[in-house]
């Protein structure tokens, strides 16, 4: 492939490219020969038209499947709406109902709890595993593949597996703990252990950030480590002073991506709590689950829209805060690149 790209770089009149001529190529004068200020403007307008044409499927999709529903969410959030009859405006009633809804508070707290534990742990462990894989070890590709497997397992299946291995009586985890004379908790069925159990399930599937970290680590120039070695820097110091700053943009990327996933935590909770939504003592009602229930079990579409808009605001605020703080800790070496 590289060879062919090389040919592409040869002068444009290359006879090899003759066959690439479009059907009307002969009739038209070559564009390069009529260069002038006018021709430039025409050319620009033409490429704007072409660019927009190529992008138009996305523009249509964006307007129909994103912009419209986004605006409509805001509108519905100010209405009483069951999804069928016409929505009628109720002002801020949905938002004030939210303030007085104890389950909203519970769901927000649970989601916050899960995010605050899961996000730093998964980022740190993913980075740790990536550092380990980046060491010069034999069979690293094999390990990388094994570490990634949990992330391709369907979420429904992995949730089922975790309920089973963490089963309080017949589960293998409590059986092993029993062997060590540690009394096993009730995991997903215990108020105090249900959230940590979900965190463990989340940590099992951290292949994605790990692979991204690994790719970033492989992009760190070796000379920098050699220079640090010559200066007598310890392994920890090399990590702090060389590795972390150089991969900080990727840390930001992973954190944001995981954060969006944490705030919208749904599938695993819905599967694991299939017989008891909310979990023991409502300890694992997650925000989006509550939104889903309000919308599709109680047909409170207006209220659910308000919850949806709050979800958007929460995600937006946290992302903006992260981006702002990133000016202090993210280091861009390449300058304003592509």
């Amino acid at each position: 492939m590289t060879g062919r790209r090389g040919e592409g770089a040869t002068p444009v009149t290359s006879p090899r490219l003759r066959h690439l001529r479009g059907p009307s190529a002969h009739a038209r004068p070559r564009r390069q020969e009529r260069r002038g200020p006018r021709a430039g403007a025409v050319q620009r307008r033409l490429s704007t038209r072409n660019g927009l044409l190529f992008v138009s499927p996305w523009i249509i999709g964006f307007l129909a499947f994103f912009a419209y529903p986004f605006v409509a969410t805001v509108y519905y959030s100010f209405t009483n709406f069951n999804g069928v009859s016409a929505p009628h405006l109720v002002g801020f009633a949905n938002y004030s109902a939210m303030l007085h809804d104890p389950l909203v508070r519970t769901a927000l707290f649970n989601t916050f709890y899960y995010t605050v534990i899961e996000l730093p742990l998964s980022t740190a462990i993913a980075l740790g595993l990536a550092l380990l894989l980046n060491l010069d070890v034999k069979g690293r590709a094999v390990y990388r593949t094994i570490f990634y497997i949990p992330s391709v397992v369907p979420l429904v299946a992995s949730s089922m597996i975790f309920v089973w291995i963490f089963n309080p009586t017949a589960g293998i985890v409590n059986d092993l703990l029993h062997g060590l004379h540690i009394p096993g908790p009730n995991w997903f069925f215990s108020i105090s252990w249900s959230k940590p159990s979900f965190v463990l399930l989340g940590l099992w599937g951290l292949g994605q950030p790990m692979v991204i970290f690994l790719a970033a680590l492989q992009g760190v120039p070796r000379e920098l480590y050699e220079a640090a070695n010559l200066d007598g820097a310890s392994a920890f110091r090399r990590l702090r002073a060389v590795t972390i700053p150089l991969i900080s943009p990727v840390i930001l990327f992973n954190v944001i991506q995981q954060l969006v996933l944490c705030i919208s935590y749904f599938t695993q909770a819905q599967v694991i709590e299939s017989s008891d939504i909310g979990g023991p003592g409502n300890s694992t009602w997650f925000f989006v689950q509550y939104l889903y229930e309000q919308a599709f079990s109680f047909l409170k579409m207006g209220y659910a829209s308000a919850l949806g808009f709050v979800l958007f605001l929460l995600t937006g605020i946290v992302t903006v805060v992260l981006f702002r703080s990133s000016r202090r800790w993210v280091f861009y070496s390449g300058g304003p690149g592509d």
Partner: protein
Amino acid sequence: MTDVLVPTRRRSSLPPGRARHRLVRSLAKHAVLVAVSVVAGFPLVWMFLTSLKSSHQALAVPVVWWPHPFVWANYPQVLTAVPFYRFFLNTVMYAAITIIGVCLSSSLVAYGFSRISWRGRNLLFYVMVSTLLVPFFATLIPLFVMYKRFHMVGWYLPLTVPTFFGSSVFSTFLLRQFFMTIPASMSDAARVDGANELYIYRRIVLPMAKPAMATVVLFQFIYSWNDYIGPLVYINDTSWYPLSLGLYQVLGTYQTSWPWVMAAASAATAPIVILFFLTQRVFLHGIAIQGTGEK
């Protein structure tokens, strides 16, 4: 992401003390890596072992590790107790339609965002990427109401139609990153010869982008295979369930029969894990591009 081969110093030239030191360190690394591998692999192994036990054996305390005898019959039993074959076909169909949609629309859009330079291109590109930050549930309700009004709820239309309109931002991003690496001179040469953009897209860029397209196909396949939320909201007829919802149904119906539940989970997981094994290089490379933006 071809693995960077680290030039290792010749071991024989090291003094024996350092050689031993190296050996110890290497063993320690492997010990940690093997331990993590066990944690990653064990739940799947346990799923499979459970699927071969009798109900009685699965619930035995203390836990019986090795199924005795192997109850292979769990598989045909659970896979016929629910229309599993149908779920499988539904999933494949869902994946196939979205793959077509994504390949068509994302490649066109990615071309517009990379091979033609025009005013506003970067701005629109940033708008597109930033839509990734908006949670699925934030816009779900009006979308649902809209599809309901067009009588599209109940079948796969709400899940497939948007893919023909560039809804897979990730695929578009991935293809754009790839298209950017193709030298501009390729297009310029063809333009000078009078080729129009569509011609360049079809005859020059797409043929060169086969590896990137393969990655997109793979990702879309795995995405639709594992998708749960979309079908949960829009598919309500059991006979149109994809595997993810079918599995959920198995869990709800045969909750206490863990071997059956695990057999169904194994049957839904095995194809995707095997596919991943076969394509892991392409796949992991795709993830890396997504994260680092590098090709």
